[in-house]
């Protein structure tokens, strides 16, 4: 095929479709990574075909090896490179993805700082292409997880000073399938073609949800136990953290087997000794807490 050196994987696929096999089926439209149609796996990694240079894809595949193109992951295949995106759309719908202002509607625009808008803007760059959904390690095992893009969308509203529904949003996002189901694996950050960093948004949502008091979940308990352990002894008391992270005795029962087998093999330390400088660590905790900058950009300036 004759594809120019600036050519993309999309150019190559279109050349194939137009010149070799007209049945080759793939979604594509803008050719300039703004419409989000052409997400697929290229050399086993989710990407926009229009943003992937053919040369780079060839380098990654290794010379002499074909560039491998597959439909996006975690979604049922309809035909060739076209997958069923209904999961993505339904999860976007599930986060109430629209501004919910409270209070009187101003005659003119809401007065908010440019910094606040720039902050939100980073996530509004999301084009809902689904690359993150395709690569998400949690969605691979559980399609009830909301997933990176919908959660980044939710973040965008909780950060928007014009939105008045953050508490309700954060409460909903603290439920199973929400922010605490993310494994922190960076796959979404890695493949996002728009640098939205969905995982970072999810982690911020966790922080905000805890700050708003939505802590009756294992995620919050784990986070608190973890932080407490470092704060008091300088390092991690795994056993205590594990025990404090669970919801109660019933859940703890599920851990008895592992606990016992680990104990037998000498893997459960009997004593957790603080590090020598634990008091210094504690002091840093206190000073950092006092120094934690208030959320400057969030609140609407009255």
């Amino acid at each position, binding site marked *: 095929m004759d594809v120019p050196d600036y050519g993309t994987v999309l150019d190559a696929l279109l050349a194939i479709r137009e010149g070799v096999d007209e049945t080759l089926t793939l979604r594509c*439209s803008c050719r300039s990574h703004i419409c989000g149609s052409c997400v697929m796996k290229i050399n086993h990694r989710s990407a926009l075909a229009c943003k992937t240079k053919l040369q780079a894809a060839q380098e990654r595949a290794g010379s002499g090896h074909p560039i491998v193109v597959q439909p996006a992951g975690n979604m049922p295949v309809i035909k060739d490179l076209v997958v069923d995106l209904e999961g993505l759309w339904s999860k976007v719908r599930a986060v109430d993805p*629209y501004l919910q202002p409270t209070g009187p509607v101003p005659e003119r625009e809401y*007065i908010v700082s440019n910094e606040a*808008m720039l902050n939100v*803007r980073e996530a509004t760059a999301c084009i809902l292409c689904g690359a993150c959904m395709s690569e998400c390690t949690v969605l691979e095992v559980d399609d009830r997880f909301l997933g990176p893009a919908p959660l980044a969308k939710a973040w965008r509203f909780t950060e928007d000073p014009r939105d008045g529904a953050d508490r309700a949003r954060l409460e909903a996002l603290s439920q199973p399938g929400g922010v605490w189901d993310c494994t922190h694996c960076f796959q979404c950050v890695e493949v996002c073609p728009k640098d939205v960093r969905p995982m970072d948004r999810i982690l911020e949502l966790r922080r905000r949800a805890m700050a708003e008091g939505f802590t009756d979940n294992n995620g919050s308990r784990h986070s608190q136990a973890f932080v407490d352990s470092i704060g008091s002894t300088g390092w991690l008391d795994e056993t205590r953290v594990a025990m404090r992270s669970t919801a109660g005795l019933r859940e703890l029962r599920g851990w008895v087997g592992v606990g016992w087998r680990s104990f037998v093999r000498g893997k459960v330390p009997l004593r957790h000794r603080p590090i020598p400088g634990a008091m210094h660590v504690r002091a840093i905790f206190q000073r950092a807490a006092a120094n934690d900058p208030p959320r400057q950009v969030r609140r609407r300036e009255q």
Partner: protein
Amino acid sequence: MAEDYDVLVVGAGLAGMRAALAAQQAGCTVAIVSKVYPVRSHSNAAQGGINAALDEADSWESHAYDTVKGSDYLGDQDAIELLAREAPAAIIELEHMGVVFSRDEQGRLGSRNFGGASHARTYFVGDFTGQALLHVLYEQLVRSGIMTFSEHFVTRLVHDDDGRVSGALGLDMRSGERRMWTAKAVILATGGMGRVYEPSTNALICTGDGMAIAYRAGAPLMDMEMVQFHPTTLKSNGALISESARGEGAYLLNRDGERFMQTTAPHAMELASRDVVSRAEQIEINEGRGVDGCVLLDVRHLGAAKIMERLPQIRALALEFAGADMITDPVPIRPGMHYEMGGIKTDVHGATPLPGLFAAGECACVSVHGANRLGANSLLETVVFGRRAGEAAAAYATERGPVRRSPSLLDDESRLLNLLLARPDGIRPAALRQEMGQTMTVDVGVFRQAETLRAAQAALVEMRERFARVSVGDKGRVFNQALVSVLELDFMLDLALAVVAGALAREESRGAHTRVDFPRRDDAHWMRHTLAFHTPGGPRMETMPVAVTRWQPTERVY
């Protein structure tokens, strides 16, 4: 399968979604049909911003005047007045819906300069304003619960016995199933027809489906010869470098490093209107002062920080497709087909001459852009006239009695599609499409003349004949894109002929339409719109006068 609605909207870009929301708000049952998911629509690609006279030092009259002047006096001034008057409220509404517009130090909406504007009245979200707006409208669509048929392709309009439009026929792309939607009013909002040209800045979906459907149903296409060539497109793949680059202060340089706009537009320089800048560039290139068929766009003097904050997507595009980092290098650019000012003729309510049929956005011609559209007026047009069309269609639907279904039409359309699928192996549609696109670019480009236009017309007529032997390379039902692309090519050939007919008819130079053989604007004869009516033998041309309210045509100086 068949569905009944008060209002059916075809197209889910900004105009379509805004229209649907307006119609629903007016109490109608509404459905949207789109050949892609709403957020994939080409409204995404508008980078620079959206115009409105919001600033106290600005006025809607000034915005309207700039638009009239930009249109080279071909825009209908009653429509332009409405556009400019309703712009501020439209921006505020978008802001209230959640658009993250850039702000000034006081936290108010911040604006930037744009071509052809006498005031900094372009409101923006970085350099992805269109995407930001499209996604916010989509959010509103989700909230509204409006029925959305994504990845459904509309093939034709349905008429009542009395000639009123009463729905549409189409195809569920995913299942291959034929569908019919019955509606008391239909709004076409299918966007542009950029793929008639090759290359074009337009997305691959911009095949003018709505224009062609309306044209075949009897609605006239207006001013189709007015095709905008954007001054800054990349040579490699035709990708667009937004006008916001020039809005932020970019220079255009020729081979000798001269800012050649000095000769053409000594005041506005790079920010003269698009037709003026594109012509100046083409002259530099034609007269040997270009660089490899291009001129240079230079933003280096803005500094890395400003480039990164204001033009991040543009820099990424140039890096990717031109191998040039705008922070350190100038980028080679040239004029490229970008926008169709013409379209389905509508009044200021979006109503076409066909009862029951409305249109809004790029597929329509109100006309607010006349012979040349100003940057950042297109997004504005979509929301202002999208809303107006939605309201008007809702009012029409409310007054109209129940619409009779005609299930036999669905069978007829099915038969036609099956015949198309059953054609024996013949010409590949892609080859014919390329040929059409290149003919249009070469012969119906920035500079035009009778001789080459006639040659293009003859070539297109011949291609029309050859189209009868085009075959569909995929015989399956599920996601048959080959079938869709043949249907699109069919539409585009009609539109290409309409563009050439308009270009031949208009024997003057105005705005984007430059006739080498008629180099002057001819106000005495051509303060008129061209109208193309579909006939089996090709377009039949008529003209009608431009609406002038307060600005008499004068010489255009930037």
